[in-house]
């Protein structure tokens, strides 16, 4: 069950560039312990809802985290990271995630 295809990845890549390096703060978070297909090896992992400085809100995974980063108001920064598992066609999917500032 693959939601992501090479064509979709190609089409979406150009949307990410303007977001890289942007900062914002966590307005809510969760820690996923029961993951969907493709994310089993990463669990448990935090997913955060972030409000960027321009007020736009984005959901993404938090990386390079420790327990003290899991709180509302925590400052985070957008980074470019691999997403999910490498699919059957061997395409590596990169996308947006957050890192604590």
């Amino acid at each position, binding site marked *: *069950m693959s939601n992501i295809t090479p064509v979709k990845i190609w089409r979406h890549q150009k949307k990410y560039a303007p977001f890289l390096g942007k900062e914002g703060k966590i307005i*809510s978070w*969760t820690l*996923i312990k029961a993951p*969907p297909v493709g994310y089993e090896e990463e669990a448990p992992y935090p997913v955060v809802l972030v409000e960027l400085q321009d007020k736009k809100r984005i*959901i993404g*995974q938090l990386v390079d985290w420790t327990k003290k980063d899991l709180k*509302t108001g925590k400052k985070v920064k957008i980074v470019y990271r691999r997403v999910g598992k490498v699919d059957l066609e061997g395409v590596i999917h990169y996308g947006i995630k957050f890192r604590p500032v």
Partner: protein
Amino acid sequence: MKIAVLGVGTTKFGELWEFSPRALVKEAVSQALADAKLDLAEIEALYVGNMLSGILGGQENLGALFAEELGLRCPAFKIEGACASGGLAVHSAILGILAGIYKTVLVVGIEKMTDHKPEQVSAALMGAGYEEERMAGITFPGLYAILARVYMEKYGITQKDLAAVSVKNHYHATLNPKAQFQFAVSAEQVLASPIIADPLRLLDCSPVSDGAAAIVLSSKFKTKGKTPVYITASAVATDSLSLGGRKDLTSLLATVRAAKKAYQIAGISPKNIDVAEVHDCFSIAEILACEDLGFFSRGKAAKEIAAGKTTLNKGKLVVNPSGGLKACGHPVGATGVKQIGEIVIQLRGEAGARQVKGAKVGLAHNVGGSGSVAVVHILKNE
């Protein structure tokens, strides 16, 4: 508006490994037709509420499939709107009647989920979400956990307050022979259950379920030997697919909008409701629903639920007498149809041990996604 519900039927909900989707639909429909004392020949259209048959079962085209299975050759449709598929199928069926095209129609909701691995079900359900959310590896418990945390921090609510919803709904399910979990749980058991998506625990979450429910709707009011029950309002609203698109995370605006419209169409207010089936896919969801539907003021629902204000034989308004999604089970496409069935049984006075005494006005509330679509129906027995 006034549409008669002539008959209702529902299979048991749960892990029904010995039954196929075809068998479940046949069972629910034969119950509904028997309840309505109608022949199949009187059905002019079939509406099927379902979400996951394609992504999990590899089967689409459910309208024709179930029409054939039932022996119908009438117009037939699959209606999909995530976990609100059942409610949307009821709404669509009503439109067919109100348009004057059909007089008597059959609505069936069906989902077969337990044939598949939990990770596959989680990923399939995320088909209701936004691409960015799927990419983040978030699940539906995760999305509602995000909502729960905002609500808990704003109103100073604890996990124990959330647990009161599951405790109540499990108690109601002990009185429902069709429910998936016919046993009580204590707040301590909820709080000791494993975390699924922090702060939501296993017993805050509705289960993965199989089941089907069916109702017969008609513009002809001849209900053979039963207390007549009518749908007097049917309203749908939508909101952003992703949580990132919402301004307020302590309310589901789609519910607020659909409810406002439904109350207006029915000419009633929230205080007129005696019994409600609301979309408690997670404990926090029932709390949001009770406020968005106007039953309690903002920030108060958790405490009111804990105080028994919506519990059978305690509250003036009873919420989720069936056990709700939490304890009756949540075969997603079936849920919205089952909710209408439960309200009909309650308004007829046929609910037995879980009967809400003297119930005259009922409400059914069905949500899809993390609040991207909501359906509200109001029913009366006069």
